[in-house]
């Protein structure tokens, strides 16, 4: 019997020999045609690039990154809203996750710039840390920039249900993944033969949440974990579906993701949030894809508390930035004129160049030598 240790949970899925064997099998199966698959998770892009999986795969298989990085698709109006709130009020502390901190709005303004100008911005690892700050500094207002897909939204919901202090509120920038996939596939712009679905979003919402896409678009889908063997197995499963015409949602990450997901987390999310139309950076307005607080939680809604509206803006990317096309998998980061020249992780122009999960930031980190 295989013992299960923490080591095994990662190393067990990183076996080089197995990876080579799998890659050979994939090569054999993909020898007669070309295939293009899309994943929608920044952590998958990191796994694929860090472990050099694209080099291991045959040329007949192209794996592109879709809109899988929440901070990359957070609309700049939300960033400008948080900045407006912070800069108009001396008693506000803005808390943010680290990967959001340096994301520029379409006018090149970020939370880090506000901090440099003397405003109170704190980077937190968890919303729990933001609430701890609010409890310890009770004469200040703490506003948490709540960003993330369904993986993160339940933690916001649960925190609001655990009686946070009165001086705590949030700007909800939470987004839902399935409506975005629906929108992308409906647009017809994205020509892919299958989707690798995000393991941790799926751990919350369950893999059945994507079945409507099979009915609508006949698109093969596999939920995958985040180790190299997880991704290779998922690709092999997608290939089989395409070749045999046996199209469905399959689950490679069954050690974590269940058919209906995490019921408790979903219930908390439903209690606190309602779906509304939301703008995604680089993609556009996507129906029923944004998580807004329900009326009974509006005391925690910073926009209500401070009576503030998001400013109108006339563009969602900086001129020349192709982040929108990168997010749709239409171009590779290296095809953007700004990539590695005026746009680097040290001085990012676009949102995809900031987070460790941004497609451009990952390409810059691991593939720069090819420039």
């Amino acid at each position: 019997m295989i013992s299960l240790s923490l080591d095994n949970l990662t190393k067990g899925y990183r076996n080089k020999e197995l990876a080579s064997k799998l890659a050979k099998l994939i090569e054999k199966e993909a020898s007669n045609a070309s295939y293009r698959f899309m994943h929608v998770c920044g952590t998958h892009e990191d796994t694929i690039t860090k472990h050099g999986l694209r080099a291991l795969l045959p040329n007949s298989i192209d794996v592109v990154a879709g809109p899988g990085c929440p901070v990359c698709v957070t609309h700049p109006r939300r960033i400008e809203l948080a900045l407006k709130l912070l800069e108009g009020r001396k008693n506000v502390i803005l808390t943010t996750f680290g990967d959001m901190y340096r994301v520029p709005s379409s006018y090149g303004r970020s939370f880090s710039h506000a901090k440099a100008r003397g405003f109170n911005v704190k980077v937190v690892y968890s919303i729990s840390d933001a609430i701890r700050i609010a409890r310890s500094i009770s004469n200040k207002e703490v506003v948490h920039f709540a960003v993330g897909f369904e993986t993160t939204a339940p933690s916001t919901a649960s925190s609001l249900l655990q009686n946070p202090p009165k001086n705590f509120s949030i700007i909800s920038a939470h987004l839902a993944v399935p409506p975005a996939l629906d929108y992308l596939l409906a647009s017809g712009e994205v020509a892919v033969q299958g989707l690798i679905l995000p393991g941790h979003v799926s751990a919350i919402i369950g893999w059945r949440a994507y079945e409507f896409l099979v009915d609508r678009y006949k698109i093969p889908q596999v939920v995958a974990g985040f180790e190299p063997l997880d991704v290779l197995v998922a690709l092999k499963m997608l290939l089989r579906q395409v070749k045999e015409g046996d199209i469905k949602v399959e689950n490679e990450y069954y050690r974590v993701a269940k058919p209906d997901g995490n019921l408790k987390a979903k219930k908390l999310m439903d209690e606190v949030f309602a779906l509304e139309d939301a703008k995604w950076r680089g993609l556009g307005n996507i129906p029923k894809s944004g998580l807004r607080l329900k009326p009974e939680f509006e005391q925690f809604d910073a926009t209500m508390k401070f009576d503030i509206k998001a400013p109108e803006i006339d563009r969602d990317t900086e001129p020349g930035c192709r982040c929108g096309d990168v997010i749709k998998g239409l171009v590779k980061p290296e095809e953007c004129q700004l990539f590695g020249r005026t746009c680097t992780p040290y001085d990012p122009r676009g949102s995809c160049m900031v987070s460790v999960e941004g497609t451009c930031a990952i390409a810059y980190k691991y593939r720069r030598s090819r420039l």
Partner: protein
Amino acid sequence: MCLGVPGKLVKITGVKGIVSFGGAKMEVDLSLVEKPRVGEYVIVHAGFAIERIDRANARETIRLLREVF
């Protein structure tokens, strides 16, 4: 952003718990997991355990990978 790290739940105090990541320990909110138990492996994301790791299924995947490929 959706990075989740596997760790072992070593202590539970109400809604909070201590998760060990190969020795490095951290306080984690357990409110999203139904009836967590000490000794279980969980996926931790942004300070919250978002789901437990099914031991039997994890073993099964590794066994299958070794047998099939």
